[in-house]
């Protein structure tokens, strides 16, 4: 602490002063001015009337083009909603498998193709019939399984 006090005392005694205040101020002002010059240089085009107007016009056109394009795209994407259907690829493949099986039942006997007097109705009805039959079969098997399980549980409870 004593040494520090000594140093401070000496500095005070030597009375330090700014000898070239004017130069310092000038150099600071010059630097500030220089920065202003850079901006002037960078935006010098704003002093040229036709260039300023042209660039402003170009900017407006670009912004309008951008907005227009976005609105156009959004409208088209909105329209896609109308074409949405609640099914996915797995369902489609599942339908294909079901149809293939139904068809295989229909075409097992090749002569059946020519039996019906009204081919379209017969084919559709037969396909529906086969599908319904297969659904019923599945439901029947499920009911049977459930009944079996119920019986087993009853036995367990009795035991």
């Amino acid at each position, binding site marked *: 602490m004593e040494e520090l006090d000594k140093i401070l005392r000496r500095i005070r005694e030597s009375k330090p002063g700014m000898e070239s205040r004017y130069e310092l101020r000038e150099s600071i002002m010059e630097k500030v001015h220089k920065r202003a010059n850079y901006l002037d240089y960078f935006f010098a085009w704003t002093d040229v009337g036709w260039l300023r107007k042209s660039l402003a016009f170009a*900017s407006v056109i670009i912004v309008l083009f951008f907005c227009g394009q976005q609105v156009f795209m959004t409208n088209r994407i909105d329209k896609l909603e109308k074409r949405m259907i609640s*099914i996915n690829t797995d369902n489609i493949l599942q339908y294909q*498998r079901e149809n293939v099986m139904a068809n295989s039942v229909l075409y097992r006997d090749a002569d059946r193709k020519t039996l019906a007097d009204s081919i379209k109705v017969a084919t559709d009805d037969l396909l529906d019939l086969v599908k319904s039959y297969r659904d019923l079969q599945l439901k029947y098997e499920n009911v049977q399984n459930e009944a079996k399980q119920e019986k087993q549980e009853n036995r367990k409870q009795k035991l």
Partner: protein
Amino acid sequence: MKRKASIFILMTIMIFLSSCGGPDALVVNMVGEDGTVQRKLILTYHADEFDLSDCQVPVDSTWVISKSFDVSEEGDTTYSLTAIKEFDSVDEINHDYKTYKGTNPGMIRRAYFEKKFRWFNNLYRYSEKVSAALVGIPPGDFFTEEEIDYLYMPEKLTDALLEGPDSTKISEEILDPLEKRKEEWLGKSLLRALVVKLADTAYANPEIGIDTNRLYRKEEELTSMLFFDDLEEEQILDTLLGKGFYQDNSVLVENFLSEIEKELGPAFEADSYLLQTFMPGELIATNGYLDKEGNVLWEVDGEKFLSSDYEMWIESKTSNPWAWMVTGAFVLFVVSGLLFKAFKS
């Protein structure tokens, strides 16, 4: 030899053939930004019997082929064949379509790919077009917009709708009336094709002396008759061209009727299949049907391209981040300059 009114016979055949008993086919296109297409074909059948030379779309041994099977809850086994091939461009697909000799040999198909630079975005368009089988009545001129939506809807999706909550309403209000309208449209289209063919024949053979104006006048009259009377070819042609024409020009008549049947072949004998396409970037428009996962689907069958070209198209976009940045910087530069000028003055 007298033939019964072939229009109705052909209509019945056409409806029937849309559900023939071969393997079901699903074609999946994965389109790349550079126009490459990865094409995947999934065939489903009740037996492990797949004949690639007899498929709905071109496929051969150069495709990567794999097989699998699926056993349903009912215990039924269905077999699937998956074939994949990378195409450098749609030209290769078109080349395959040109040399194709499968179950749809008369079907004229073409694939198109287009990429457009639109500064902020790149737009992509992929389409596959099946050329019209004959000059009939385009569906757009006959059906309403809603009817067209259901007309082009893949059969499997219609089936799915009929299992949904509004099935009765859809069936009674849309699908049943549509079936009747479809029959009417098919009849009118076939009659139009006949009239156009007759007019062409008249043009090529002026010595026969067919009055083409009379042909078009009689078309309307004949259309209404077709739905009430069981007409024979002789009656149809005599109504159109004057009594006795059929007998007097039997050879010519036989020739052009054979020609019409030949033209109708691709539509009547079409073996239907499903087409699905994935595009690069974000989907923006399509005339296909979107499923829950955003996949786009179409069905190709004879009805769809009977009287007008059937184009299955899809469009998507990708963004250009550099264009956004360049544009942002430019607009910022101009706005800053204008503000600077305003403050300065």
